[in-house]
């Protein structure tokens, strides 16, 4: 029995993370986790900047709240939720695998969690645009 995870070696260059040509599910999972992780770190620090409006004062915060209700920002919120859901669920799988749980079923596990993620994203999108 041969056990292989990708057709090629694990990428070291950042641009190789998104080059999924000829790669298997493992590379998709790896690339998704890396890209969503980077996106969420960028968002975290953007969030700090946004929250500084609270310190500036009521008028600054209210102005930001108004901006946050624009369709473009709401669309970014959907992207943010997609990142959170994918990274969270994939990270859950990686952590369990790290403890030796579900290693043999990890491909099924990955697809199952991404299906759950798609459902959660659909609910989140509905809430973002209707609240």
């Amino acid at each position, binding site marked *: *029995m041969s056990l292989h995870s990708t057709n090629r070696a694990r990428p070291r260059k950042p641009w190789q993370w998104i080059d999924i040509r000829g790669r298997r599910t493992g590379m998709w999972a*790896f690339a998704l986790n890396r890209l969503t992780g980077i996106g969420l770190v960028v968002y975290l620090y953007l969030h700090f900047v946004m929250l500084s409006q609270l310190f500036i*004062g009521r008028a600054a915060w209210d102005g930001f709240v108004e901006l946050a*209700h624009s369709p473009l920002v709401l669309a970014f919120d959907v992207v943010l939720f997609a990142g959170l859901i994918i990274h969270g669920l994939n990270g859950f799988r990686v952590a369990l695998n790290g403890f030796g749980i579900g290693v043999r079923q990890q491909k099924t596990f990955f697809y199952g969690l991404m299906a759950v993620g798609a459902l959660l994203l659909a609910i989140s999108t509905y809430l973002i645009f209707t609240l």
Partner: protein
Amino acid sequence: MQTTATVNTPAQPRSAIGTLGWIWQVVTGAALIPLAGLHMIAQHFMVEGGLRGFDQVQSYLSNPIVWPIELLFLISVVSHALLGVRAILIDLGPSPRLARLIDPILWVVGIVSVAYGAWLTYAIVSAA
């Protein structure tokens, strides 16, 4: 010949960031599921319009149960994020000289980030 395709773990944790860092990333990752969930529900989904107004934020953060939870959330999210950044930077194969700088820089960034978030919370609450 039977072939078993597997899904790679996104990071080869123990070799890339060390056992302690990997455990801490798992612990904070697990903590972030309820903490981020609570943050999202309380700050966005339970509020009309999806965002609290200025007075609502002050009132929410003034709750003695809320601010320790938000502080725990802040520490968890910052350390989880910076451990992820560390894993990526090390995976890029920096020179030994550059690699030695990664940890101290990320520690400073992490401490400043948590201090800024805690100070911001305090400033908002004390302005009430």
